[in-house]
């Protein structure tokens, strides 16, 4: 039989103590540098925190892959959306002339912008891939204005840590951290493949977050809210996704 010698016992104790101390220190550092996601609790919390922290250390500034025009998908898949609400139908009937994007929360001057206000801002385009968590994907050209410009114009405050964005569909809201919100490829998108953004693909206004899965690129955006904490939004898990069982950070 193996006997536990005193030496072995002491070594095991020291290793365990070092492990606990190491984890506590790691937790403090992760909190200090904002490396814990809003859904970083519960049984999947350790995995989510490792993923989010590793991604933020490796990918804070990296650019999503862009593709040549020849790789734009001939038959992109629009995915299913809920039937349009009466409010959406009314706005659509008016050619979306009355569509308004509100920017509020931790900003110096809250804004209300029409689509033509947004079109007057610098327009950029990117040819990036939409990746669904189910596994399918397509490449398209997305035309819009970087979210960072709109946030700048609203005078985003330095305490802001997340941007919450809401769809005209009341149950559909998301949030991203400032690394993604200020990322040059995060667009308020109004055009696709040289045309208007079709309703099926999120028109008239979709927030494209190309470094994350499709479900973070919410369609029919009405409101942006800057906040320092996700605590008071929904169940405090960061977005509607964790409330439905899906990860808040969808970069993987």
């Amino acid at each position: 039989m193996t006997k536990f010698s005193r030496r072995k016992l002491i070594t095991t104790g020291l290793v365990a103590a070092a492990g606990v101390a190491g984890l506590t220190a790691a937790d403090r550092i992760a909190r200090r540098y904002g490396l814990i996601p809003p859904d970083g609790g519960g049984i999947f919390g350790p995995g989510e925190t490792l993923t989010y922290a590793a991604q933020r250390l490796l990918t804070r500034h990296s650019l999503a892959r862009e593709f040549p025009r020849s790789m734009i998908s001939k038959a992109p898949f629009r995915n299913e959306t809920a039937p349009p609400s009466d409010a959406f139908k009314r706005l659509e009937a008016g050619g979306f002339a009355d569509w308004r994007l509100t920017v509020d929360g931790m900003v110096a001057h809250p804004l209300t912008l029409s689509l033509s206000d947004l079109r007057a801002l610098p327009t950029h385009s990117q040819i990036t891939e939409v990746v669904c968590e189910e596994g399918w994907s397509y490449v398209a050209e997305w035309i819009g204005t970087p979210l960072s410009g709109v946030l700048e114009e609203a005078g985003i405050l330095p305490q802001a840590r997340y941007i919450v964005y809401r769809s005209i569909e009341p149950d559909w809201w998301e949030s991203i951290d400032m690394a993604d919100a200020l990322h040059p490829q995060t667009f308020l998108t109004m055009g696709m493949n040289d045309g208007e953004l079709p309703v099926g693909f999120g028109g008239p206004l979709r927030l494209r977050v190309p470094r994350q899965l499709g479900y973070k690129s919410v369609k029919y955006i009405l409101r942006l809210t800057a906040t320092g904490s996700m605590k008071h939004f929904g169940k405090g898990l960061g977005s509607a996704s964790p409330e439905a069982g899906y990860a808040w950070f969808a970069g993987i």
Partner: protein
Amino acid sequence: MNAPRHSALVRVTHWLTVIAFLALLVTGLELVISHPRFYWGETGNVNMHPLFSLPLPTSRDTINNGYGSNMPDQNGWSRYLHFEAAWAVVLTGLVYCIAGLFTGHFRRDLVPAPGQRSPRAYFQRLAQYLHRSPPDTGEATSYNVLQRAAYLGVIFVLFPLIIWTGLALSPSFNSAFPVGVDLLGGRQSARTLHFFITWALVLFFVVHIAMIALSGFWSRTRAMITGRAPAQQERR
């Protein structure tokens, strides 16, 4: 008692990997049924021809493959668990590899012994298996050359490949390391390869269990838990 058949390092990392592997397998197959179509290249969706499509009922009605779409949608927790288990495999593998180098585990237990590195040695041991002749006495305390090759292949080829192809499915990771996905021929190729490598691991898993069953399931399992090899006379 002499030295344990399996060191504590091997035993602990073995069972952690078993738990994580099963979690990855179940959740991975669960994710597949939300889109059981596979493609080659960068993009692929229901508007495109698949490389192949699995005859399975699906969990999403975006797929219309004639097998129905009434499977429960479990992607939320499956994704959470898949990535948590992936971290468990990666961290366990790191500990195992670093310790394996320092303790000489790889050199002593897994790299074929000097006299055993010719193709002849492999064929000889294979013939022994096929004739069902009893193993040499040395095999009670050490792996034969085919076992060594299989374990090295799983540890240093299949696991790195499954991790690589899995990471290549992360749009965020790809933004920092685009060469990872580009080398595999695109995102959908990476997904298809991830699926194939899963089956290679499953094949190893099935053969591994079968060989354990043939050589005495409980005595082998006990050896991997307690570290002690069964007495010679227990062997069939």
